[in-house]
């Protein structure tokens, strides 16, 4: 019992001593910590960005409008009736009729085929309905589209969700890239901390020698450096969290303005509690790992034989 207590108190002392030593040279060590913080903030920040975009796109996708082109044989009265009927459905928010005359005018104005169309004797365009679904999931919308396609007056349903799918794939790709960046920068953090610890070992060569001569085990010698590494990483994690919140703070109001233009009340999502903990934990762990590598390499050199 008392042995465990002494063991824990030794670790606690090492933890506090390591922190004290870092604060003894605030400027130099702070720069190291900021470098680590930026290296951690970059992948974490990218991840936050991608997850914001994908959350946003989830809501777009379900609310995607689509168009029904009616058969040429359907007249305007019937088309109006259809629009009203469809609007009765619970999964439809709004159905707007674009009548063929109106469509022709718009097409002439915007398509650049104006003169070509004038040479035609008859209007080649059918009546069309623009359907705005109530929203919900993507499958609800496809179900609705399918149901409307089954009507005998329907010639064609054009469900324009392809761009959402493309965006999805782009986001998927972006996530993969973020994963790679995360791994690379993780290595970067390990190397930065490993190098810092290596310098610290060089500076404290005398102390290490004396400790070994009076019977300090490798574990005893190593432990303070491992805790230093942990603090560097943990400090880097704090810097990363502050950086991400800072950037979100700067971006928040233009993002809100943009969302309002799209009639959306979307708010940017930052790091949640678990993600914050994970960022700190990852920092600490990478620091520990970097220190472990540095000490394993450099403390062995101090051994006899």
């Amino acid at each position, binding site marked *: 019992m008392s042995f465990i207590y002494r063991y824990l108190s030794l670790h606690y002392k090492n933890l506090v001593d390591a922190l004290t030593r870092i604060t003894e040279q605030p400027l130099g060590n702070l720069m190291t910590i900021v470098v680590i913080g930026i290296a951690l903030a970059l992948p974490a920040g990218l991840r936050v960005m991608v997850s914001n975009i994908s959350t946003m796109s989830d809501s777009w996708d379900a609310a995607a409008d689509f168009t029904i082109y009616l058969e040429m044989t359907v007249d305007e009265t019937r088309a109006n009736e259809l629009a009203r009927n469809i609007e009765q459905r619970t999964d439809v928010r709004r159905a707007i009729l674009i009548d063929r005359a109106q469509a022709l005018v718009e097409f002439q104005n915007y398509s650049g085929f104006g003169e070509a169309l004038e040479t035609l004797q008859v209007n080649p365009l059918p009546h069309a309905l623009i359907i705005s679904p109530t929203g919900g999931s993507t499958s609800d919308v496809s179900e609705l589209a399918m149901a409307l396609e089954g009507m005998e007056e329907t010639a064609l349903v054009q469900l324009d969700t392809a761009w959402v799918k493309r965006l999805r794939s782009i986001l998927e790709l972006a996530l993969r890239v973020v994963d790679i960046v995360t791994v690379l920068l993780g290595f970067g953090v390990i190397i930065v901390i490993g190098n810092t610890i290596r310098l610290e070992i060089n500076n404290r060569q005398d102390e290490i020698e004396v*400790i*070994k001569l009076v019977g300090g085990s490798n574990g005893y010698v190593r432990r303070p450096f491992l805790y230093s590494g942990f603090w560097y990483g943990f400090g880097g994690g704090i810097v990363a969290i502050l950086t991400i919140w800072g950037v979100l703070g700067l971006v928040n109001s233009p993002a809100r303005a943009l969302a309002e233009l799209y009639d959306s009340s979307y708010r940017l999502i930052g790091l949640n509690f678990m993600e914050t903990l994970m960022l700190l934990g990852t920092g600490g762990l990478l620091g520990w790992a970097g220190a472990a590598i540095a000490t394993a390499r450099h403390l062995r050199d101090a051994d006899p034989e």
Partner: protein
Amino acid sequence: MIHFENVGKRYASGREALSGVSFNLEKGDMAFITGPSGAGKSTLLKLIALIERPTRGTVLVDNQNTSRIPRRRIPYFRRRIGIIFQDHKLLADRSIFDNVALPLLISSLRHREVSRRVRAALDQVGLLEHEKFSPLSLSTGEQQRVGIARAIASRPALVIADEPTGNLDPDLSLEIMRLFERFNQVGVTLLIATHDIELIDKFNCRRLRLDQGRVVEMPKSNGL
């Protein structure tokens, strides 16, 4: 306590520091190793503390064959030996108390026990009132006494000293040796390397002279 049998040590550089050293030091003895510098005195002590390993022969310390001690057990082995260095190897950024406490903290002794033993050791070398100071504030002789306090704080049965009076004037040297004599009187085995023949003539102890890598037993002096 210490038994050397036909021990040789050749360094990687090719220099043969010891060739065929044999001697025996009984428990409770105090002995000097003399010889010109470069005769291998330091090497001999390093073999005892496992700072180096012999290239041939057998070294027994407290009936334990040191060649059978694996590298990872060396720290635990060293905790049973007090080692004193010519340059005392104190840590300048720690107080005298913390320097002496270092081997005790490494052995993870209870805090109360650490304080008690550190004070006892500092008291024996006459530096109790300096415990909060930095080693740099002390004279060379006092620094050496802190080094001695550190070596004896864990109450080892064996103390080895490499030129402990190398940097001291004759009066201080004698004082240090008297200190060793006192430890010996309470049962500590001591092996002290020194080139100061005049100094050890004052003590009635065994003398081992290292010459060309071999040990020659010298007659005991009567002391003064």
